[in-house]
Structures are given as structure tokens and as C-alpha cells.
């Protein structure tokens, strides 16, 4: 009885300790924040001081140069093409990786860990970083951008899908094994039917990210509509830059909506 009542009413000491812990945590976060803010030269004064010139920039962008849109059609198509080819090639490359990095399909422990490690390593690199490196390697242009998105799509799709694959119902796999089915037959008859909707949904998700990424690949010289943004800003052609931003915004929203509708159909 006495134990039960004491557990219901925490003692004063426990309450005070809890408060002290809270204060320490807040103090730590504040310290880390101040350290970081000093590192980036954060100053409230500068924000207020620079505010007018920021508004000036926005003002210079209005109205956007509508006529510039005609010149954006080509780069826009290139942006799409970059995202589409990158997504498709990346998805195809992801398939073997998905199967190798799922412990219920690949029972070879060393191969499993190597695949998983490769996948995680490939995933730590941002598509812009891939693009910057590839531009140095294969030269300026959309081809470098496409390769960047290929690596990125492969890594992220493999990561997401292989994790879902590890969570499928293993019963059918066992049944296929008990029938004397081989590995490929297990994949075709027990794995694929279960994972396909998820895989398709993640592929659309990766395509959404790729569309977004392909609009800025041009900033590192990897083709697409981002090149126009870069040039317009460098040449102070703000109405043109505004038109690029507006076009990008509309395209990204449209693709996101379309992809969302498709994904809801899948699940």
C-alpha cells in the first residue's frame, strides 16, 4: 500500500531534479545555437539593414518578363527529360540493389551488408553534389544532371523499397521455397506481387524529388531551366529571373499534384 501511494506522488526532490534537467537541456540548445549563429555571422542588424535592398530586388522582378517564357520552353523540356531519364535509369539500377539489400530475399550475409553499405553511402550524397562532381567529370550540360539524378534515384529508391521489402509477409516466400521454387521464382511469385505497389509509389515520389532537383541543377551547370535562372541573376535581368521562378513553381506544383493523385490510386 505505502509503495503504491509513494509512486503516485513523486517526491519534491524528483520534481526539482526534473526542472533542473529541463533548464540544462534548454541551456545546451541555446549554447549550440549561439555558437552556430556566430559561425554564420548572423546579425539581426543586418537583416533589418538589408531588408530594403531585398524588397528592391523583389520590386525589380515585377512584372515578370512574360515574353521570356518562349525562350524557357526548350530548357523546360530539357528539365523534364533530365528528371525522366534520371528516374527511369535510377529505378532500373535500384531493382537489383533492392533485392540484394533485403535480408528476407538475400540470405548471403556479406553480400547483404555490402549492398546495404553501398546504398547508404550513395544516399548520403545530395544530387547537387553529384551534379557538381559529374560536371567536372563529363562536362557541362544535362547529361551530367541526368547521371546525378540516376545515382540519387537509385540510392533513395533502393533504400525506401528495400526497407518495405523487409517488412512484407514472408509466408508466401516460405510456401514457394517449400514447393521447390528457385530464387527467381520466389521473387516473381512471392516478392513482386507484394512489393510492386510500394515500389511504384516510391518511384513516383522519387520522380517528384527529381523534378524539383532538375530545376536547380543548372546552378552548378548541369543543364535545365536552372541555367536560365543562374544567367538571369548574374546579368541582373530580374524580370527574366522572376519568369523562371514562376514557371518552376507552376511546374513543380502541377507535377506534385499529378503524382499525388497517381500514388493514391496505387495504395
Amino acid at each position: 500500500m505505502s509503495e503504491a501511494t509513494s509512486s503516485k506522488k513523486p517526491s519534491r526532490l524528483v520534481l526539482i531534479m526534473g526542472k533542473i534537467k529541463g533548464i540544462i537541456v534548454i541551456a545546451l540548445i541555446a549554447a549550440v545555437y549561439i555558437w552556430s549563429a556566430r559561425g554564420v555571422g548572423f546579425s539581426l542588424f543586418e537583416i533589418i539593414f538589408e531588408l530594403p535592398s531585398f524588397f528592391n530586388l523583389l520590386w525589380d522582378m515585377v512584372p515578370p518578363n512574360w515574353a521570356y517564357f518562349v525562350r524557357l520552353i526548350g530548357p523546360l523540356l530539357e528539365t523534364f527529360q533530365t528528371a525522366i531519364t534520371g528516374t527511369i535509369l535510377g529505378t532500373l539500377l535500384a531493382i537489383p540493389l533492392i533485392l540484394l539489400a533485403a535480408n528476407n530475399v538475400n540470405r548471403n550475409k556479406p553480400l547483404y551488408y555490402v549492398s546495404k553499405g553501398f546504398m547508404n553511402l550513395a544516399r548520403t550524397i545530395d544530387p547537387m553534389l553529384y551534379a557538381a562532381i559529374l560536371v567536372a567529370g563529363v562536362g557541362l550540360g544535362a547529361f551530367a544532371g541526368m547521371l546525378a539524378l540516376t545515382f540519387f534515384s537509385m540510392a533513395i529508391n533502393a533504400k525506401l523499397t528495400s526497407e518495405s521489402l523487409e517488412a512484407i509477409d514472408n509466408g508466401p516466400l516460405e510456401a514457394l521455397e517449400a514447393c521447390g521454387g528457385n530464387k527467381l521464382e520466389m521473387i516473381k511469385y512471392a516478392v513482386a506481387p507484394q512489393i510492386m505497389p510500394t515500389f511504384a509509389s516510391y518511384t513516383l515520389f522519387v520522380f517528384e524529388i527529381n523534378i524539383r532537383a532538375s530545376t536547380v541543377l543548372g546552378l552548378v551547370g548541369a543543364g535545365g531551366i536552372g541555367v536560365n535562372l543562374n544567367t538571369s541573376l548574374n546579368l541582373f535581368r530580374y524580370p527574366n529571373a522572376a519568369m523562371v521562378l514562376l514557371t518552376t513553381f507552376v511546374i513543380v506544383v502541377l507535377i506534385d499534384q499529378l503524382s499525388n493523385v497517381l500514388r493514391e490510386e496505387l495504395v
Partner: protein
Amino acid sequence: MVIIECQGLSVTYPGGVQALKDVDLKIDDGEFVIVVGLSGAGKSTLLRTINRLVDPTGGRIKVDGRVINELSKKELKEYRSQVGMIFQNFNLVKRSSVLRNVLAGRLRGVPTWRTLLGLFPKEDVAEALSCLERVGIKEKAKSRADELSGGQQQRVGIARALAQDPKILLADEPVASLDPPTSHAVMKDLKRINEEDGITTIVNLHFIDLAKEYGEKIIGLREGKLVYEGLADEITEEEFEEIYGRSITAEDQLGAGGGANV
């Protein structure tokens, strides 16, 4: 004629759990055997060792005169195709059609390039359909597996095993997920197939009334040891209590109250 013979069969799992301890067992060709025991007694391990989903760590198993402990990968697939298995949770691919699920039982006889393209020979499709007919659900062939009731899904499981044209049928708690009337129907199907085709059948059950009603021979496992082997007609309540290591309760019977508690 003996078809399955276990000698000193032991299974120790990697974690150190001893699931089977020195089991000696003979099963005759065409017999209908029921394995009883509490959950964790090793029933499931015994079945899975027979088709080598679990590898024995000691002793040996002879099936049809051949020791199956050491088979090459290819021989193992060939051997497994002769042993049908029926599972507690049916283990169907829910999103696939009933027919496609049953066709999985025909994989072994068809070249892999054909199975991967889904191009099964006409005879195999006909065979799969006739297996569905035998369990009374041929008209469901085109339905998606998850549209079927539990009892129907288990019949798909039976049809898939039958499609293998097996010498041995292993059923691991085939009625544990079903209601009492459906349980009886499924047990009757298994019994009928055993009688018509003479396929040696081993069924794991934990309901003693079902075991007595359908079994020909009963095997009792307790903590991985074989503690009973005898005819179903002769087993007494005391012997069941010996196998279970405790007194028999209503939950051990499917009949009256047992099913309702599950």
C-alpha cells in the same frame, strides 16, 4: 512400407533453443498421422525438418529410402517438390489470383524461363484447375486470393500442395486460424485426399478432439521429445495429459467451448 524414418533427429536453433531432442520415428506410406503437443513442443520444427525448411543438427531422416540430410541445392528443390506443405496462415500471395497461387505448386516441372514469363503449359493450368475442383473452389480461380474467406483460402493452400502431385503432405496447424465448422470441413478435405490418393499426410494440431476424430496414428511431442506414439482409437485422456504435461482443459478441444475462446 516405411516412407519417413527419423533416427536420433535433433534440432538446435542458432539461439540455443533445442526444438527436437533425439526423435526416433517411423511413418508408413499412406498413413494419416497427427502430431499433438503444446505450442513450442517442436511440432512445427518436426514438419519443417521433414521438408528441410529447417536443417537437422543431429541424427538423420530417411524419406523413401533416401537420406535427405545432405542434398545438393538442386536435389533439395527436386525433393521439396514431392512434399506439399499447408500452413496455418495459408501463406498465399494475397494480391495474386487463386489460380496463380495454385500454379506455384507446378513450378518444379516447368522451365524457369517459362515460369518467369508466366507461360505455364496448358496441362499445368488444367492440373491446377482440377486441384481447385477437388477442394470445391474451381469457380474462384480468377478471384484475388484476399477476396476469399479463411476456409476458402486454406483450400487454395491445399490445392497448391496438391498441384505438386506430392508423395507426402505436411500440414502445420492447418485449422488454427479457422472457426469450428470450417475446421472440420478442412480436416475432412485432408482426410479424403489421403484416402483417395494414398498420400502420406502429417498434420500438426493442438485440439485433442480433432486429433482423435481424424487421426489414424497419433504422435505426441513434449519439449522436443517424442513422448507418445499410438493409434488414435486407443489414446486415452490420461495419455493426452501426459503429452501436454498438465490436465486437459476446454481450450484443448475445438468442439464445445474451445473455438469460442480463440
